[in-house]
């Protein structure tokens, strides 16, 4: 196992990609703090699955866009496990619309959760990781943060921001043994992408050289690599896990 005895905190871990990441890290030996914002029942299921593997799991409710909430989450996690080796900033939402139709509140909500949330969680966990002189921070961006996407100005701006934040945090923390990398998923089958119309989906399929949609496990395996010793000589990078959509 690659993560024996490690402690991971995964934000937005009750569903979709976050859920799969939490389970994958646990399969490789990590104890996991399962963060959720509202879906407590689903988050408990994830925690139960992790416990069934013989690992420890705790549930931590937090709105990642609120610093008070985030600080409490980090405190709860370090109190339960004594350390945090891996932070996966995965929590995210979409509120899509054409720029001309996008409400200011929809812009703010997406930026606050998808971008400010990464900043707050990273800032809060850094103290613990600096003391440990080691840590892995993995930010879930999106391939549209690289390519742009009509109808997602807020989401794209946030995900693009996450890539810049990843590079800067990587530079600031490198001397302390902390690596920071991002994953940019392409079109992955989750609740979030189920909202797209059939027409949108078939349009996207045409742009995917590997000619299929991705699955949450495709992202989880990449996160496992970035969380493990295998990736020790890389930091500040963004891995495109998108079936070849954007090269």
């Amino acid at each position, binding site marked *: 196992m690659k993560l024996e005895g490690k402690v991971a905190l995964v934000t937005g871990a009750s569903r979709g990609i976050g859920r799969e990441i939490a389970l994958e890290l646990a399969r490789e030996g990590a104890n996991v703090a399962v963060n959720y914002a509202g879906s407590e029942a689903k988050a408990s299921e994830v925690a139960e699955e992790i416990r069934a593997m013989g690992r420890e799991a705790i549930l931590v409710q937090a709105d990642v866009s609120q610093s008070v909430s985030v600080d409490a989450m980090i405190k709860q996690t370090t109190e339960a496990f004594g350390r945090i080796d891996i932070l996966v900033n995965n929590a995210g939402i979409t509120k899509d619309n054409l720029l001309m139709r996008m409400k200011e509140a929809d812009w703010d909500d997406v930026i606050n959760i998808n971008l400010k949330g990464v900043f707050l969680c990273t800032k809060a966990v850094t103290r613990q990781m*600096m003391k440990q002189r080691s840590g892995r921070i993995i930010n879930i961006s999106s391939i549209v943060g690289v390519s742009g996407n009509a109808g997602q100005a807020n989401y794209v701006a946030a995900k693009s921001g996450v890539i810049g934040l990843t590079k800067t945090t990587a530079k600031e923390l490198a001397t302390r043994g902390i690596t920071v990398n991002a994953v940019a998923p392409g079109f992955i089958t989750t609740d979030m992408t189920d909202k797209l119309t059939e027409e949108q989906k078939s349009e996207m399929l045409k742009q995917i050289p590997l000619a299929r949609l991705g699955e949450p496990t495709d992202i989880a395996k990449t996160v496992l690599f970035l969380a493990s010793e295998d990736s020790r000589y890389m930091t500040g990078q963004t891995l495109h896990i998108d079936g070849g959509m954007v090269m």
Partner: protein
Amino acid sequence: MAEVLERVTKIIVDRLGVDEAQVSLEASFKDDLGADSLDVVELVMELEDEFNMEISDDDAEKIATVGDAVNYINGKM
């Protein structure tokens, strides 16, 4: 006062690998003791643990010399 200085000095010597004789009240962390910005952040974190107090980001930014740190801690104790 003397006791605070002693404990602060020990942390600085451990963290920055400087000689105890260099750690005077006037010594600037960055200019005299070779600390970079991140070292200062870490020092403040260690002082918080050592003296069991919270130092806000605004206050931490004002701590530039050994004397600043000692005075701040004495003021809070």
